[in-house]
């Protein structure tokens, strides 16, 4: 094909036009589809029976509490002595290196161990969640052992997401949790090397445990703050945040306009500048 170079670029314009039209077609189509899925979930209303993974309790109580099996205390003791006593002491009474765990309740122990925060490697920095060291059975055994040492503290909650309201949860979450964990739950850096972690990996039980026990620098929300129903509602909303309605295409990590700005400048303007370089004149 003998086409003058410059002209060739002009002739490619209709091609660009075609791409533009087809892309917007795709976009329109996908949003049509997006809208109908959301209205689908709306029809099931706020008593949405979809559960977002995790252990859903039975019955109508929003939260049931796990009864730990006393026969596992022996195993728990062995595990504790092997993994924890070097810092927390043989009977969890605390040492100069780590706090007393007696009377904190099974929920506290369970949260710290199941999120992988304990056992700790470096006591000088904030314990962060990492892959848990122990299986669920082993964790429950440790919980059983430590909570057998002294009375008190909340038991391990099992959230009945079926009895929870996602929209009540939204209201409670935005009022009580967003100020630290951000409204989308991605988490962020608070002052002085303290982080409000991302809520995306947490299981329903861990979320309820965090609310009730207030790990680290997080405030503790006791029964005077939230009823069990409200804890379940928040938990359900946090579970929703882990898989939110991402209408509109590729989500940009939910950290807000920062990533949007980069995409707008680098991909939006960047590709247009390349296009301009392509069809425009160059150095003479």
């Amino acid at each position, binding site marked *: 094909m003998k086409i003058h170079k410059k002209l060739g670029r002009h002739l490619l314009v209709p091609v660009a036009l075609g791409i533009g039209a087809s892309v917007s077609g795709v976009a329109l189509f996908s949003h049509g589809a997006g809208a109908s899925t959301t209205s689908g979930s709306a029809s099931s209303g706020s008593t949405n029976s979809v559960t977002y993974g995790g252990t859903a309790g039975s019955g109508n109580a929003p939260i049931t509490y796990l009864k730990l099996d006393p026969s596992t205390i022996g195993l728990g003791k062995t595990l504790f002595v092997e993994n924890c006593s070097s810092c927390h002491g043989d009977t969890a009474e605390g040492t100069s290196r780590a706090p007393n765990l007696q009377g904190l309740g099974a929920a506290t122990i369970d949260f710290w161990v199941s999120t992988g925060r304990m056992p700790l490697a470096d006591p000088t920095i904030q314990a962060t969640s990492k892959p848990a060291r122990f299986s669920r059975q082993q964790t429950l055994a440790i919980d059983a052992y430590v909570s057998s040492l002294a009375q008190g503290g909340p038991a391990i909650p099992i959230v009945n997401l079926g009895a929870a309201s996602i929209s009540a949860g939204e209201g409670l979450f935005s009022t009580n949790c967003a100020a630290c964990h951000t*409204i989308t739950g991605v988490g962020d850096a608070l002052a002085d090397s303290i982080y409000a972690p991302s809520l995306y990996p947490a299981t329903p039980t861990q979320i309820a445990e965090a609310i009730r026990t207030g790990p680290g620098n997080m405030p503790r929300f006791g029964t005077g703050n939230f009823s069990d129903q409200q804890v379940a509602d928040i938990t359900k909303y946090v579970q929703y945040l882990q898989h939110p309605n991402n209408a509109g295409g*590729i989500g940009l990590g*939910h950290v807000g306009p920062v990533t*949007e700005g980069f*995409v707008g400048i680098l991909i939006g303007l960047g590709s247009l500048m390349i296009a*301009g370089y392509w069809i425009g004149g160059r150095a003479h």
Partner: protein
Amino acid sequence: MNYAPIDWADERLGIAKFTRKSLNKIFPDHWSFMLGEIAMYSFFILLGTGVFLTLFFVPSSADTVYHGSYAPLNGHVVSQAYASTLDLSFNVRAGLVMRQMHHWAANVFVAAIVVHLLRVFFTGAFRKPREINWLVGSLLLMMAILEGFLGYSLPDDLISGTGIRIAYSITLSVPVVGSYLASFLFGGQFPGNSIIPRFYTIHILLIPALMAGLLGAHLAIMWHQKHTQYKGKGRTENNVVGIAMWPAYALQAGGFFFLTAAVLAALGGLVQINPIWMYGQYIPYKVSYAVQPDWYMGWLDGALRLFPSWEITGFGHMIPTIFFPAVLLPGVTFGLLMAWPWIERHFTKDYEVHNLLDNPRDNAWRTSIGVGVMAFYMVLFFASSTDVLANAFSLSLNFVLWAFRVLIFVIPPVAAYVAYKLAQEARSASTAGKPRKAMVVFRSSEGEYSTEESDPRHELELKRIALHGDAPMPLPEEAKLHGDAEDGAPLKKGEDFAFIRSSAAAVIAEEIGERPSHGSGVYQVPRGTPGAGGGLFSPHGLKVPKERKGSEEEK
């Protein structure tokens, strides 16, 4: 083709002469001249998508109970503004893609304006006679930023509401008149019920109208003064070398519009922006951590974060701390921006007319100042995400903040110095300013490599050059006859549009390589000098240029 409608219009409006002239208008062609076009086309997309949004958006703070498609907010009391934006996102067909295109277009719009401004700055295009357009452009930038902020605020979601809250405090911080200003603007105390409808009126009527007017002026002045051009073969201060409006430039520009539309549609359809349903209704006692404004406000947010919480007193009163980063800084920024042509002239004493652009490396001082200033605002911009950076790199937030407080003083001078040295270096390189030759790499059957210089230009172009030389052609006779009424040749009826008719043929002719002809070739036409025709009150015309001191290196 039937020309009757055109003749009909011409007999009544006399459009032929102007149209002919316009179609023959010569535009210098360079990719960097298309940056302003990106901004302009994004503006058009903003108008189009914005009008769509107005059909569904309800600009009211009045409460309503939400019962739409988005289950997590079902039963919440929200404002009508927020509810209607939710409906736009989930229930209006194509509503979400329109919202997202509108928002992406806004982000690209301001970015394109900034890059366009940098092009104008670094090439010295703002020098005489183009200072007026520099001012008009600066106004357009300020309005675009304000317009974006207002639009971002309209949905009344938690994040944008926090932004309005900050804007309220900033207004309050203005000494003496702050509290009056804030209560005029908000119709009383924050939040009140007036701000959404007021922002709406300003966002969809006042500023777009002003911007459309200013954009018209911007283009008219550019048209009238004729575009600048880079230095190069056959290009002088007194001519314009470029491609003709019809068909080459029109096709190029029209195509570029569709490309812009395509990119914005692709972003709008495929990449999520501002998912307001995840943010919830703005309620003054609620706040989310990690809120930032859209990118073009980022430098102001960064300045707010970096500025220390000093209590500064003046005239016996404490001046609120945020006054300095949030009112004074933008004031000084835009003040200096608008004053730049005169600031530079103050130092260069250059009173001459410039139609040829500088290569940034040829004016090391200007380039290094520009780079330094750019670096300053970039640091402020990145400082607006101290928390995000601290979180992403597991650093202490306090450390990141202090690092930026140091960097804001260190990076700009370093960047300016490096730019100065690079500019000097580039200018002294032996290949500076010479187009690079393409090299073709050959591999012999023995596996040996060799290179040979090649001319990347198309064979037809080379053929034309062999015939006519590679200087730009003057406008061809035919076009001149029809394009320039001053040469007095009487035109027969029906002949007025001969040029339009013949140009399509010309494109094809060139394609086959028959003859280089007008249409998509490169032409040169003379350019007039504004003010050369004699002054209104003085017969001398142009003022005698004042003696130029210093800055010999520029010539």
